[in-house]
Every structure is written in structure tokens, then in C-alpha cells.
């Protein structure tokens, strides 16, 4: 048997020639297959779906990322008068620990790669909120040579919050809309259904 041409996901037939990494991968695959495709997976999902969904929608961590005017309203939204913390909204500074990318301003061509990178650095499940006209369509700068007209040209956007700048109430409303959206798109962790 040719050892060099081992398939990535070997079947049981050549179990003798496994390396430990292959074995782990194989075991992983088998377990995952069992969990995902068998009634075990869907049963677990059935039991935990609501709970996980409740947790996910009640603990939204947006990225602490200010671009323009709306960034101030974002700050105000977490200050005493509007108090977004009531809904479990806590700003984290690193994309690794965030659920929501809050784009609150025009995206210039210089920023575009950085923003895309931030989005890619976030762990899933993740959502994007386009806050304010600039993020939705470019706003007053829609025909500028330097502004990308709308953040949805390169990042999928879930919630649009209109306003120039969007008021803090509107931002909180956006978070509640996002909660509703998460609630409606209920998915099991294992089967993805």
C-alpha cells in the first residue's frame, strides 16, 4: 500500500496506517457525523435550541469601533440617559470577542480593507449593523471619490438604522430588531436546522 497517497479522511480499511493526527481527524469526523446526522443531534438540538437562542440574543457584544458622527450617539447610547446595558449590550474592544460589527459612518477606500479584516476576525455567529446614512448608502458623501457607497457592498448587513446621525433611541431599537431577527432565525447548534 502506498503510504504517501493516504487520503485525508481515510475509511476504516486502512486504519492501521493512521497517524495520530489522522486518527483525531477521523474520530472527529465520525463523532460529528453521528451528532449531526443521527437523531441524537436533532434531539440535542431540539432540547437546547431555545436556550441557546435566548442566550445569544440577550447578550450582544458590539465592537467598540467609532467611525463618525454616529459613534458619538453610540457612546451616548451606553451613557446613563439611554443605557443600552439594560439589554445586555456591552462594548468590547477586540473583534475576537464580539458578535456585532457596528458600522457607524462612511467607509473610505483606505478603511475598506481594514474593516473587512475586522469582520473576518470576528467569530461566528456574527451580525452587522449599518448605523446611519453613511454606512447604508454613503449618505451626504454618496458621490465622493473616496467613500464606498454603502457598507453592504463588501460586508453582509443584517440591520439598517437610518438617520443622519441615527439617534441613540434608534440604535437601541436596532439592537431590539436584531434580537427579534436572531429569535426568528432559530438554528440548532449541531444540525444547523
Amino acid at each position, binding site marked *: 500500500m502506498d503510504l504517501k497517497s493516504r487520503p485525508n479522511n481515510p475509511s476504516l480499511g486502512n486504519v492501521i496506517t493512521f497517524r495520530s493526527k489522522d486518527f483525531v481527524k477521523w474520530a472527529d469526523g465520525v463523532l460529528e457525523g453521528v451528532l449531526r446526522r443521527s437523531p441524537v443531534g436533532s434531539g440535542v438540538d431540539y432540547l437546547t435550541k431555545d436556550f441557546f437562542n435566548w442566550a445569544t440574543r440577550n447578550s450582544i457584544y458590539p465592537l467598540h469601533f467609532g467611525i463618525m458622527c454616529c459613534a458619538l450617539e453610540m457612546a451616548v447610547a451606553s451613557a446613563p440617559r439611554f443605557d443600552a446595558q439594560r439589554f445586555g449590550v456591552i462594548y468590547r474592544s477586540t473583534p475576537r470577542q464580539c458578535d456585532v460589527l457596528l458600522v457607524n459612518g462612511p467607509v473610505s*477606500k*483606505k478603511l475598506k480593507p481594514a474593516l473587512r479584516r475586522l469582520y473576518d476576525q470576528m467569530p461566528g455567529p456574527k451580525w452587522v449593523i449599518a448605523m446611519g446614512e453613511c454606512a447604508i448608502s454613503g449618505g451626504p458623501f454618496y*458621490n*465622493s*471619490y*473616496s467613500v464606498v457607497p454603502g457598507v453592504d457592498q463588501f460586508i453582509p448587513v443584517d440591520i439598517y438604522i437610518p438617520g443622519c446621525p441615527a439617534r441613540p433611541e434608534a440604535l437601541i431599537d436596532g439592537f431590539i430588531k436584531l434580537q427579534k431577527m436572531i429569535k426568528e432565525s432559530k438554528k440548532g447548534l449541531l444540525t444547523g436546522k
Partner: protein
Amino acid sequence: MGERGTRFLREGMERPASRIDDVPEEKVIRSLIDSFPSTVTDFKKLGKGVVRARIARRDLYRCCKFLKDQLGFEHLSMISAVEYDKRFEIVYHISCYGSCLLLELITSTPKDDPSVDSVTSIWGGANWQERESYDLMGIKFNNHPKLERILLPKDTLYHPLRKDFKGGG
């Protein structure tokens, strides 16, 4: 105009003749004329404490040095570049902390060779403003320590504020 204080008056409004000698802008004009008789021209008083003058490109650096060292213009407020049909005009707004004067120094450069001497070594604040003028208008500043694009990405090919650039705006 004194009470409402002001905004810069239009040319044509004149102040009482008797006080002209006391006003420092006259002194500035006089000393500039004395030092650069041929290159500094076209003086105009725009309002209280605002003087406009034109200067030939070759004497810009020397004149700025003179302004800073001899006349105490310590603050370079703004460098703006304006494009006209045949030339670029570069407008320096230079002000003085002590006497609260603002000097609008205009120099022009032909379109095929848009370059002037950098004044960064005189006023450190000119550094980024010159880079900006280079970035947006494409004016070259000789002897600038680091003449690179500042606002736009490094690989941009155009100078957006030029009138022949039609993309956006």
C-alpha cells in the same frame, strides 16, 4: 466696524487716515517692500489685520524666513492650493501671535511644473499641510522631508482636487 468687531471687511472700506501709521500691517508692508523690492508685489489690505501680497516663486523661501525671523510671524495657519487655467496658486496664511496680524501670501506656479520650495524647515506645522497639498492637488514641494500621500491610500494614481479629475464630488 469697531463695535461689531469683526469679520474681515471688504476691500474698499477704509479706516481713518490718521491712524494708518499706527497699524502694524503698514509696517509689515513697508519692511517687505524694503527687503524684497522686486518679488513681493500687489499688496492689498483685506480688512482689519489682514494683508494680501503676492510673491514670486523663487523668493518664497527667503521671504518666509524673513517673515519668521525678522517680523515675528511664528504661526503658519494654512497652506491652500488653488487651480486656475494656466497656473496653480499656493496661498500661505501666516499669522503673528503678538500683533494678531494675518498675512495672505500668494505664490503661483505654472501647470507644467507645479513645484515650490518647502517651508517645513521654517514652520514645522507646514509639514503635513504640504503633504496634503501634494496628495490632493499634486504640488511638489522641494526639500520636503517626506513628501508622500497622507490622506489617500499610497497607491492612488490621481490628485482628486484637480479640475480635470471628474470622479465624484
